[in-house]
């Protein structure tokens, strides 16, 4: 069976696998093997364990949905990361998210600070003109 993982920045993963185990906070664990009936599910925070010939990969997912039909699993995720280990992959994803949010906050602060300075300078410049 095939699994395709899609995120807002493009296709993340597209490979053949033997079976997958889906685990999420909202509805626990279940596995999809070959020739499973068509299925649609949602994942708030969780991971998909992908197994092929004893090799295991984990895709951690935040806010996603998956659809299985005719041995093709389509995973649509707002954010996802593939790793060898579910904890390290989750850790990585969380770190990236935290860093980005922190950077955004810093940028906003810098922006506001620059804006204030500009206002102050403009005021001063006009005062000297009069």
């Amino acid at each position, binding site marked *: 069976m095939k699994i395709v993982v899609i995120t807002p920045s493009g296709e993340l993963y597209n490979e053949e696998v033997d079976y997958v185990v889906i685990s999420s906070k909202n*509805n626990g664990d279940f596995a999809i093997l070959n020739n499973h009936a068509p299925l649609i*599910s949602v994942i708030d925070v969780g991971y998909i364990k992908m197994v092929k010939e004893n090799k295991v990969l984990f895709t951690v997912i935040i806010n996603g949905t998956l659809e299985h039909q005719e041995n093709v699993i389509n995973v649509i995720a707002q954010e996802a990361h593939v790793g060898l280990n579910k904890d390290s992959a989750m850790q990585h994803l969380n770190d990236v998210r935290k860093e980005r949010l922190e950077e955004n906050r810093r*940028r906003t602060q810098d922006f*506001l600070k620059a804006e204030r300075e500009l206002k102050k300078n403009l005021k001063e410049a006009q005062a000297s003109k009069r």
Partner: protein
Amino acid sequence: MQSMREIKTRINATEKTSQITNAMHMVSAAKLKKAERSIKAFRPLTRRLSRVLSRVLNNDHTLSHAMLESREIDKVCYIIVSSDRGLAGPYNNNIFKAFEKHIKQHHQSHDEFEIAALGLKAFQFAKRKGYTMIHDDVIQVRDDTQYLDFQSISDSFIKGYLSGKFDRIVVFYNQFINTLSQEVKQETLVPLELNPLLNQDDDDDGSYDALYIYEPGAKQVLQTLLPMYVVNLLFGSILEAKASEHASRMTAMQSATDNAKDLIKDLQLQYNRARQDSITTELTDIIGGAEALN
């Protein structure tokens, strides 16, 4: 006529400005390519998500959700997507003008709507006009936009709609048509139109009437899918707006560079005239002096 030195200074200044505008033009061109790439990368997700949604809705026609039902409109939430920085030609002004026109036509007082301003320029615009905003902080629209940047604000839209704070969410953004033209577009995000959603299945394998198993249940799946779909629509328009911004800035900077070149040409002519003038004056002086000696 201006003195030669004055003209020379102006030529130098204009040349420097044209160098800057030319550099900005090239930077925007590179960023535009990147923005176009991210739009392209984003498309498969939208397509697949709407396909899944359409399958869920087609599978069970009794399913309903607050986001699919239009209710009496009491308060509208307007999302304005603008840029953080200026020098992008008419990019921001076009949106603001279209928005004000819309407000004048559809609303009597400022209490009937709230604004969500994405980008610094829209934030300043809303503040200047005294509109009520649903957030206090500036939300930046970075050049390397990521889904995560808008997650908290999009969550507040969805929550606001579901709790009945707003009865409609409309987004204003610049649609990217090509490098030379962008068009202001307004789109209603929620409530969603049901019919186009039902017909979005573009697969021709006819398998979409397959009976699906829902995990945990059809209702819960829809409850997650619909907000996700709406947020994705919004993110799609932000990506479009970003590409439009770069395209608009690119065109503006190109014409600025062209104008600077014309200006330099005129100034050069003036400079040459002034120089010739001074030479002529000097010559007449010398000839006049020589004649006086004879």
